[in-house]
């Protein structure tokens, strides 16, 4: 781990940008049709629960990254294997984000440019940033968040002014009952984007005030969930359900329908700006987690040195991961959720929390003479710093 500290406010912004990252790009929860926003909100509640699980693990081991505490919980051998699986998982996810993004650029703007070139540029930028460390990434996020925020507000304003919102498109609510909504939640929105906050388990040890982590994290997930839900609701109300199921990038289609005062039209550049910034942060965080995780697991002293080789691996992976966009999306929505997200985001962390709980209870019983339980004492001590 590098000697860096990030503030609670920076964590908030990082989580928000991370959640919005590629979720703004692709159609999420579209199986729930006009109730997509509801599926996102329920997913958000599930996200709260998952975050509490990750935070629970963090509060047992506030100073070390998951790759290390996995070994403490599961034993050295099993823990190392699990940690390695998680690192691979992070690498795979960042390759997926890169592919999503590259495909978006090709389908909507750069028809003749090879995917490899577009991805290479983004990967180089991400490598450059990760080499600078988490502090620089956090500071960058503070600046770009303001930009995204302003863009978002102005897009909302333009959409409202151009009068393309039709609330009737959102009706009827719960046409086929709550069942399809819940199904969408548990097959999709819970894991993507909310369950992916698991990578922040790698970031949390850098926080300068650990006592605030829980509150800030929940706040950030809630904030981003609300934004995602309202963006999806606006998309549906502007485009109507039939169009949106056919659109690969609903937000882009929505922005393209804006027309104000006869000359403010085709504002595609807004979409490029928002998605490039969002995807940049999402990739950076995944990539940073995998670099730091690898460094920690294999005892590499300077994690920045791993940025280039791992970045190259991610770049190549992002190209070879699927032979075309439909395959890529199919994998993402059906295969990954069941075989990767569900076990790695939900089952294993919950089990780990359970084991950690039992282990620490045993310890506590042993040290029952101590006035303070060790965990709480530690938190208080670090807060004073």
């Amino acid at each position, binding site marked *: 781990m*590098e*000697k*860096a500290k990030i*503030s609670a*406010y*920076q964590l908030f912004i990082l989580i928000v940008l991370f959640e919005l990252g590629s979720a703004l790009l692709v159609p999420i929860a579209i199986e729930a049709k006009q109730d997509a926003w509801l599926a996102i909100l329920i997913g958000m509640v599930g996200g709260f629960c998952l975050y509490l699980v990750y935070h629970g693990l963090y509060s047992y081991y506030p100073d070390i990254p998951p790759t290390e505490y996995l070994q403490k919980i599961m034993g050295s051998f099993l823990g190392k294997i699990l940690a390695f699986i998680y690192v691979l998982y992070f690498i795979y996810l960042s390759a997926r984000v890169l592919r999503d993004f590259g495909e978006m*650029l090709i389908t909507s*703007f*750069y028809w003749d*440019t090879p995917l490899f070139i*577009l991805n290479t*540029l*983004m990967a180089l*930028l991400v490598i*450059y*940033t990760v080499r*600078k*460390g988490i*502090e*620089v*990434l*956090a*500071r*960058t996020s*503070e*600046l*770009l968040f303001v930009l995204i925020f302003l863009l978002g507000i102005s897009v909302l304003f333009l959409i409202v002014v151009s009068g393309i919102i039709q609330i009737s498109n959102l009706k009827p609510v719960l046409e086929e009952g709550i069942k399809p909504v819940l199904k969408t939640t548990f097959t999709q929105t819970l894991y993507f984007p909310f369950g992916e906050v698991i990578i922040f388990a790698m970031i949390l040890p850098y926080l300068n005030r650990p006592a605030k982590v829980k509150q800030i994290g929940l706040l950030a997930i809630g904030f981003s969930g609300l934004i995602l839900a309202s963006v999806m609701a606006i998309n549906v109300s502007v485009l109507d359900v039939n169009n949106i199921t056919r659109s690969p990038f609903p937000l882009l289609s929505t922005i393209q329908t804006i027309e104000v005062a*006869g*000359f403010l*039209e*085709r*504002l*595609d*550049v807004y979409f*490029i*700006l928002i998605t*490039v*910034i969002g995807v*940049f942060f999402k990739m950076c965080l995944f990539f940073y987690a995998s670099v730091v995780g690898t460094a920690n697991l294999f005892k590499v002293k300077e994690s920045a040195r791993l940025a280039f080789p791992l970045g190259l691996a991610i770049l190549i992976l992002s190209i070879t991961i699927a032979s075309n966009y439909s395959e890529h999306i199919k994998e993402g929505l059906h295969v990954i959720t069941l075989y990767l997200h569900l076990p790695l985001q939900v089952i294993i962390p919950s089990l780990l929390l359970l084991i950690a709980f039992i282990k620490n209870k045993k310890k506590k019983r042993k040290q029952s003479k101590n006035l303070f339980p060790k965990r709480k004492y530690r938190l208080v001590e670090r807060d004073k710093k």
Partner: protein
Amino acid sequence: MSYVFIFKTKESKNDRKIQEINNQNQSNNRPPNLIESSLSKNLEVIKQKTGNSSDIIIRPLKIGHNSQIKIAILYVKGMVDNQSVNDSVIESIMNNQNLSEKLIPQDVLEVLIEDVVAVGGIKVVSDWEKLFTALMSGETITLIDGISKGVCASTQGGQRRSVQESTTDVSIRGSKEAFNESIETSIAMVRRIINNTDLWVESFNIGKMTKTEVSIMYINGIAKNEIIEEVRKRLKGINIDGILESGYIEQLIEDQTTTTFPTIYHTERPDTVAGNLLEGKIAIFVNGTPFVLLVPALFIDFFQSAEDYYERFDIATAIRFLRTVIFFISLVGPAIYIAATTFHQEMIPTELAIIIAAQRESVPFPAFIEALIMEITFEILREAGIRMPKAMGSTISIVGALVIGQAAIQAGIVSPAMVIVVSLTAIASFATPSYAVAISARLVRFIFMVSAATFGFYGIILVFIMLIVHLCSLRSFGVPYMSPLAPFIREEAGDTIFRRPIWAYKKRPRLISGQNRVSQGEDQKPQPPRTRIMKNTTNVEKGEPNES
């Protein structure tokens, strides 16, 4: 990261220290260079050391009873104030009654110091090195036969440029004075603004050959001790032949050299220096240049001018917003035009797109080449304009505006729209308050243009993010360069692209100033009188209180 950084510099500083110690040892190995007691021998040494330079004046005198004691007065022509040398030194010695009595040389020395030489700064030196430093810096030396010491009287003077109006930091409101080349004058100008004993000055002589006087100035109790210590350490580490301008110091003490952005601020204005000192910054004065350095410098400092604080806050805020927009235009102006016309034509309103297309029909080059031609032409014009004698200035503008602008369009080399874009960018780059940051924007602009030409808006955004990452990774004397925007500090963000009212400056910047952060009292906000009695003067005289 910062830890690592400090550690590294410590290491290199240690190396330098070792070198220094070695150098000192070498000089200690030489025979001790003390002044001897024989005057003729001493004069011989001086003549030999200075190569008998013709601007060194040696004036022999005889004093005492029967004029049996020989003394000599030495000074460098042009470096001294002639009047004080004549009146306070030579004349006083020749006319003084005490000196014509029976005296032994030892007494002469004492009498000289106590009764005769009518100059404020006086000191006695006994080794050659100090004597030569004093002589070369404009002091007048008196040597007495039979005594192995010299008396130095500070008679510095000579012709210097007078205090004039600033030519680089021009302002409409506020003090018009600017620093000049003399370090004493410059320091005094700041002292005149901050009348406080806590304004401390430390001096160094830097440069093996030039021995340039360099002073740091800070307000004790406001400036952070760690930063002062770091500045001292970096200045002491400098070991080069000569310091000719503060730019030398700047390049030798900055945190990171691989960046086009300035991490040290320089200014010509005493009020800017005073304002920054009050925030806890440290000023570095260098003899021989009117440009004073200020550290630590933040990115946002380069977009502020002293005048912002003299105008009311709403106006100043509006102007600062304008400057942000200006900086943006000067960075990405041509790049956006290139991207829009080459990749994203659908973004331009249809009528305009048709007009631009019609204009570009006759132009044989792609938009990027077109922009490059215009940009380079403009850079040539600008570079020529700077060093052109004033009388020829109008020639340049005629050649620039008419011949190149108009004729290039008629010849079909560039399109009129491109001329508009490039000229707008050029004007924008002049409107940035700091030349140092405007010139780096000029460089970065070309990177933006290349990226726009190859990947359109995607390229521009990527380079833009990279620029921000780069800026966020910079530090100036350990302080993050983009603060207080990133890391965001709420109570200080009011003085960035906004300018909060003066009465709202309750605290000094946290990262720059040290422990003592309260800068003004409570309730500085002006309020109208609570009673209306003020109108009626008789009531006020009766003693009606109308405090707010």
